[in-house]
């Protein structure tokens, strides 16, 4: 057999291959936006605004990637984000709670979700899709039970935190009046970046991180290799739901209100970002950096669409779908090519 002739596909593993595709496409797209649309895209703040409004999505998408790498799925994250926002809003506004307390509530809800969903999926062997589907229903329903009407939080401490800006040195621009406007990011972005780095390290170097890949690659083999498959699955759901809790708080911090219709369809955006970032739904392949770029690609395309004047709501949906479609086809074709190359 001619295994001496090694193509580029052979040298790279699946994860790196898909990651490279994603990053290249993102930069091409952003470059294209800068060249053809100019305007906002040339200013660094445009980029930071993308980060600001998508910090929560980055966090939940990272959690989603972990579950997907392990071979599962969690569609309850959007619901959890809404539930967390509402609970924190009610706690801060109606019970005059403290910031620390609200953070604990957010993380607590996430952990509780992780415990229950993880247990059902890992130890009772129920399909993750069904479990998290029920989880999503439950979270959405619970949100309206906690408080039906949407409302803004008036807590002063909270609003001070919400408006805190962290300036990025050297990235500011001078506006028409000649005043220097520094570029800034919100606290949520810092949290998101920390989580991206942390998860990258966990997935790359820790035992539990590698176990996620092994279980996603082949559950049966992983068991035979001496990995505790059930515990690994449980951990993956714990991480995902906890991150959904944290993501929920970051979302809450960004919008400053509680509403049952918050984060509608966020689970789908998170899944789409993971896929665009090169995570395979079949499990075992994926990378947190890819997911990060997946979120950026998704929101960049949304921005391009809206700044191109196609502002009607339906264009966003259609473009995201088209993009998802393209990336799925790329994945499918690349993998098929690779398989073919290997056979001969």
């Amino acid at each position, binding site marked *: 057999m001619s295994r001496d002739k090694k193509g580029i596909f052979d040298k790279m593993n699946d994860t790196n291959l898909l990651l490279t595709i994603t990053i290249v496409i993102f930069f091409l797209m952003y470059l294209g936006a800068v060249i053809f649309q100019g305007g906002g895209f040339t200013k660094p703040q445009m980029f930071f605004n993308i980060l600001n409004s998508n910090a929560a999505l980055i966090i939940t998408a990272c959690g989603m990637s972990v579950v997907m790498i392990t071979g599962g799925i969690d569609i309850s994250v959007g619901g959890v984000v809404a539930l967390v926002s509402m609970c924190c809003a009610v706690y801060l506004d109606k019970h005059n709670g403290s910031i620390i307390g609200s953070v604990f509530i957010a993380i607590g809800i996430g952990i509780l979700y992780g415990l229950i969903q993880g247990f059902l999926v890992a130890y009772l062997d129920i399909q993750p899709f069904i479990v998290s589907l029920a989880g999503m229903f439950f979270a959405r329903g619970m949100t309206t039970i906690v408080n039906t009407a949407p409302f803004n939080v008036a807590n002063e401490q909270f609003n001070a935190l919400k408006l805190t800006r962290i300036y990025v040195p050297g990235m500011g621009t001078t506006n028409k009046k000649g005043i220097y406007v520094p570029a800034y990011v919100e606290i949520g972005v810092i949290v998101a970046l920390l989580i991206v780095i942390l998860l990258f390290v966990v997935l790359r170097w820790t035992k539990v991180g590698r176990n996620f890949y092994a279980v996603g690659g*082949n559950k049966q083999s992983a068991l035979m*290799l001496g990995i505790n498959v059930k515990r690994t699955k449980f951990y993956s759901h714990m991480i995902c739901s906890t991150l959904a809790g944290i993501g929920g708080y970051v979302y809450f911090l960004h919008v400053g209100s509680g509403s049952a219709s918050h984060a509608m369809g966020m689970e789908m955006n998170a899944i789409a970002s993971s896929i665009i970032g090169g995570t395979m739904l079949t499990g075992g392949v994926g990378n947190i950096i890819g997911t990060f770029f997946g979120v950026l690609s998704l929101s960049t395309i949304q921005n391009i669409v809206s700044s191109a004047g196609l502002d009607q709501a339906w264009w966003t949906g259609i473009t995201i779908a088209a993009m998802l479609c393209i990336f799925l086809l790329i994945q499918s074709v690349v993998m098929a090519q690779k398989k073919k190359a290997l056979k001969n």
Partner: protein
Amino acid sequence: MDEKKVLEMKGIDKTFPNVRALRNVDFSLCEGEIHALMGENGAGKSTLIKVLTGVYTKDAGTITLKGKGEVQIHSPQDAQKLGISTVYQEITLCPNLTVAENMYIGRTEGALTNWKKINEAADKLLKSLEIPATATQQLSNCSIAVQQMVAIARAVDMDCKVLILDEPTSSLDEQEVEKLFGLMRDLKKRGVGIIFVTHFLDQVYEVCDKITVLRDGGLVGEYEIKDLPRVQLVAKMLGKELDDLSDIKGEGGTYEGKDKDEKIFEAKDLQSNAGIKPFDFYIKKGEVNGFTGLLGSGRSECVRAIFGADRVINGTVKMHGKSVKINKPLDAMKNGIAYLPEDRKKDGIIQDLSVRENIVMALQVLTGFFKPFSKAQQYAFADEYIKKLNIKTASADTPIKSLSGGNQQKVILARWLLMHPEYLILDEPTRGIDVGTKVDIQKLVLELAKEGMSVTFISSETDEMLRTCSRLVVMRDRKVVGELSGEDLTQNKIMSTIAGESKS
């Protein structure tokens, strides 16, 4: 416990719903010993192995390990920690991880992975075992054989006291098997006890020291290899004295119809996308012929091309002298060709469907989408063949997956016979099934041929082919390299043709 014994299992019992898989089985293994575990399918070999590796929990009995005393094994991890490693027939590694990671995952100390260290260690080990792979390569980029060797390398490196090899050779070619045997002997010198499970008798007599025979979940006995000639071993596995296998040919005679020289099927320059060179082939009415060659030489790919199972990219095909187009399995079936695939689990059985549905499947598809058989008709078909082929099943409604391997194979055979094909292709019909059923299938092939059916028979065991076929097509490196018939049909001649020597 004996000084030299590394493992002793006593009085092992295991019951599944409806089946008592193991009855009071004893087994012991000494240091530096290669111990064959033999038995027909369903004899309890795999159950015993799975009890030992913690996949199943035993109902009764004790497992004692040297230096550890009596142990309880509840999971594969437990087994690994106790120094029991297993290499399975199917690759039990993760295809998405690198070679090095597959060798070390699940058994490193500490919470972090030191990539540099494991890559170096893996490369060193791969080199010392002469495995053609690099540490950082993704496993799915390696051939199946290399993947198997990586699995063994992992087990070897785990400093195991007991190494279980569960049919590791079925996907390896001869050279690779030799390399594996070298490895086994090397480990034996280091004092590792090896349990070797295989269906190949030759291999048992080549490397093993002792044999333990199981039958119907019970222990038959433990024997020194030199005290147990082959015939006796087979007899013990079957539980009866075996009539001489080698003489089933000629028992029933051959097909003597007027049209016995008619070429039923003829192919010219046939080629599929599975990577075989174009080949010519024909079969006459009532003839039994076969494709032979080493594993991976392209025998299966040839018959798959005939049946249209792979995409045909070149060549012409004639049935009864008239040219026909065969692009997909349905075309072949319409022309009266039937194909029993090599991989029963992957390509043959439809696991959750009943024996009845599995039997009628092919004929049903051939009859057409809009003409389903009535239930009564289906039962009639199924019952007829269950009786004819002596299929052991609780009822025609039992899901096929709960049958033993040999009986599953008979069901698949029934499926194709029900179609009353003119030309039947059997690709490894006897692999992984018990000796009794093997003989049944061989006899059946000869009977069918006598009645005028043309059969192409492929088997890894050359003596089986010699017993059944009157003409052999020899393959090497995905190419047809010769054809043998009549006087030339001897083991030596086949070997030399495969090896490519001009004279024998």
